[in-house]
């Protein structure tokens, strides 16, 4: 027996993993050809993609941008490719894109619409990217609800200023009365004062100021609004107004007060049970019937009201889901701190409930934005209404793919960015509830 033993003194160098498990080959083996079924699926999908692209790419790129009518397009295609089929005639988009975007808005006033859009983005910045935008921008956000309608509809500047003054009245009224008679009385008195200001005083003051000092820009009638701008306008207003209304409705539905609860439940279930079309019928045909004789207000405003109500009912249900998902301990914690109902909602319940329901809220936003196209059915010229009108035009009679592709891309960009933003927000607000 010898006591010799073999001990390795040096380590072998590390080898690269087999070529078939790393890099592009490994990835393909793993993801595309891991089994027979998978390989078949891959081949079928490749064939499918090839089929689609083979049809789509020549259609998109072997196209004509300059033509001013479909017949001209077809002549060009016949000359160039020998057939008039299978080529996109983008001339229609080139010819009508301004109309598709702005409707019948006067073309020398397009800058106002553009400015309003820029303002919208600027006003949204402090809300959407709170930590990146400068704090002072919040003043712009506060002025925005009065600035935007003035820019779009035009007219005297005193109207929006007097409307905004109502909030100043409420604010100082609240400060002043609260010092004397307590917060609840202060709230009631100041809100009443605001309502009285808006209903009876604001109009007179505005017309008085206008006769003294007439500052204003050219007024544009509502029936000139149209195109994608109308979708954006309706979408922004419905989204902006429906969130607070939806929160109130959700709180009302969760409330202990039987009558308040019944009213809220009735409203929500009614709105959710009927299609938006019928509500738009109400806006276009009936709203004037429900209001005092002689009232006749703008069709766009009527549509805005109905869309806001519609969206608010859906929003309320989404937020109710968030409220229901909160652990009971959060409510009890708020009570044990001695917070009253509104304080508890504002500081503890709502921030968490809203955070939970972000995906639902954003998909509601996307839904309501897409639903703005329905106004074409009650005769407003939004993008789809305009596309029908363009297709009825003799120059472009028979064109459809190109127009619909353009509209679809417009909506896709806005909706897709909204959904991506919601995912970003979810990640940002992640506070570790997820496993």
């Amino acid at each position: 027996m010898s006591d010799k033993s073999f001990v390795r003194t040096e380590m072998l160098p590390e080898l690269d993993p087999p070529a078939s498990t790393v890099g592009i080959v490994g990835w393909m083996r793993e993801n595309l050809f891991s089994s027979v079924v998978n390989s078949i699926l891959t081949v079928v999908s490749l064939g499918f993609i090839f089929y689609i692209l083979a049809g789509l790419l020549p259609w998109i790129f072997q196209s004509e941008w300059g033509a001013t009518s479909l017949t001209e397009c077809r002549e060009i295609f016949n000359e160039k490719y020998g057939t008039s089929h299978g080529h996109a005639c983008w001339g229609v988009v080139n010819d009508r894109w301004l109309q598709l975007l702005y409707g019948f808005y006067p073309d020398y006033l397009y800058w106002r619409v553009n400015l309003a859009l820029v303002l919208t983005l600027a006003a949204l910045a402090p809300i959407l990217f709170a930590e990146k935008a400068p704090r002072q921008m919040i003043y712009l956000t506060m002025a925005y609800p009065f600035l935007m309608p003035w820019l779009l509809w035009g007219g005297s500047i005193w109207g929006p200023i007097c409307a905004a003054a109502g909030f100043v009245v409420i604010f100082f009224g609240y400060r002043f009365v609260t010092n004397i008679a307590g917060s609840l009385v202060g709230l009631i008195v100041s809100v009443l004062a605001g309502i009285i200001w808006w209903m009876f005083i604001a109009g007179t003051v505005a017309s008085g100021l206008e006769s003294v000092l007439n500052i204003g820009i050219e007024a544009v009638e509502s029936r000139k609004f149209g195109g994608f701008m109308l979708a954006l306008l309706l979408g922004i207003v419905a989204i902006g107004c429906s969130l607070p209304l939806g929160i109130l409705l959700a709180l009302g539905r969760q409330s202990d007060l039987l009558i308040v609860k019944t009213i809220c439940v009735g409203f929500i279930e009614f709105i959710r049970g009927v299609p938006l079309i019928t509500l738009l019928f109400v806006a276009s045909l009936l709203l004037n019937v429900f209001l005092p004789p002689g009232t006749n207000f703008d069709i766009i405003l009527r549509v805005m009201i109905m869309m806001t109500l519609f969206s608010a009912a859906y929003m309320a249900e989404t937020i109710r889901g968030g409220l229901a998902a909160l652990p009971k301990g959060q409510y009890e914690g708020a009570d044990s701190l001695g917070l009253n109902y509104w304080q508890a909602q504002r500081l503890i319940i709502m921030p968490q409930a809203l955070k939970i329901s972000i995906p639902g809220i954003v998909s509601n936003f996307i839904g309501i934005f897409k639903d703005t196209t329905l106004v074409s059915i009650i005769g407003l010229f939004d993008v789809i209404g305009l596309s029908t009108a363009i297709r009825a035009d003799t120059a472009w009679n028979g064109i459809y793919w190109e127009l619909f592709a353009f509209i679809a891309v417009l909506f896709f960009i806005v909706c897709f960015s909204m959904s991506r933003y919601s995912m970003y927000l979810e990640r940002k607000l992640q506070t570790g509830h997820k496993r």
Partner: protein
Amino acid sequence: MTTLTDPPKESFRLSMLIYDTRYRSATIQVVALMGFMLLAAWLISNTLTNLETLGKPISLAFFTEPASYDINQRLLEYDSRDSHLRAAFIGLLNTLVVAVLGCITATILGVLIGVLRLSKNWLVARIMTVYVEMFRNVPVLLWIVLAMAVLIESLPSPRAFRGENPEATMSLFDTVAVTNRGVYIPEALFHNSLGNIHLFGQSSMRFDISLDLVAFLVVLIAGLFVSNKIKQRADKVQEETGERPTTWWQRLAVVFVPIVILLAILGFHLGYPELKGFNFSGGTHMRNSLIALWLALSLYTAAFIAEIVRGGILAISHGQTEAAGALGLRQGRIMSLVVLPQALRVIIPPMISNYLNLTKNSSLAIAVGYMDITGTLGGITMNQTGRELECVVLLMGVYLLISLSISFVMNWYNKRVALVER
């Protein structure tokens, strides 16, 4: 909320209505109720005054007047001499047809796409993602209008089927004609038909029930019932002896043999569409508007259903799959026996709201001229009679009723499959 149990020491003061939590809720409720009633009264009185000035007080008398317009796609017989009520009824049936067809197709497509989106195959999963994003981010109205435009513009006209060397031919062994006026499919005909039962006499709601269909359904249900019994017996035998008797051929026979016999007795044959003159005749004609609406609604809703299905499957913890694998189940059985039954509980509630949405979206039929209830009651009838208030209110009522029934039925089903907890 703070609640006092002791009775108040001091006597009641008016300010306690606001400041005392015991009375405050009552005060708020009373104020809310009064506000609500005032608002309602204000709206109603405005409406009555306005309608009086317009000279059309609320009345439903127009329902019995002849509608004098035609409805081309219909389930029951109808002509333009029939009343507005009959037209609305036909429209309602059309709404239900497209809703049911759409829900079935959307579910099948949606489940398929949702499962495929989770596929291990990278390419397949990506294609499904593109599908879902494409349909979710573009308005449904655009899809409907697009589907209609494509059907009208890209399909051959009936004229193209004529002549010695026609440009277009009928598909599926010359049984289905796909034209730009719609799709003609074979219809079921019977040599010795049992006839129809007429319900409700000559009223607007008259309804024909085909006895052939009733007989078919009765035999089918009886067959399924017996087949179910055979399965139960097989289960019992398996539990007692450990061996499962082969029953698939018995079960198939029990369902299909009686049906075949019944069809033979009734003299079943198919009526094929034939080109006559300028158009096809015979067969069942499904109009473009119906197909466009059905197609667009199903494809659109399928994208949403796919996401729900995907979410539901992802919600099932991976441990369940692994445990099932450890028991020796194969991939397909893991899905059907372990994952899907659990995922179903997560999936059903949002699925209900998608069915509701599809039904409500079917009101967009008005954009392509499909005569559903929005097209009849809320469209032509409203325009002809000028009775906006009555028509819109009734329209809303009908949709509300449909929505409530769907959610009632689906919630009942949800309760049935829900986990029984404490």
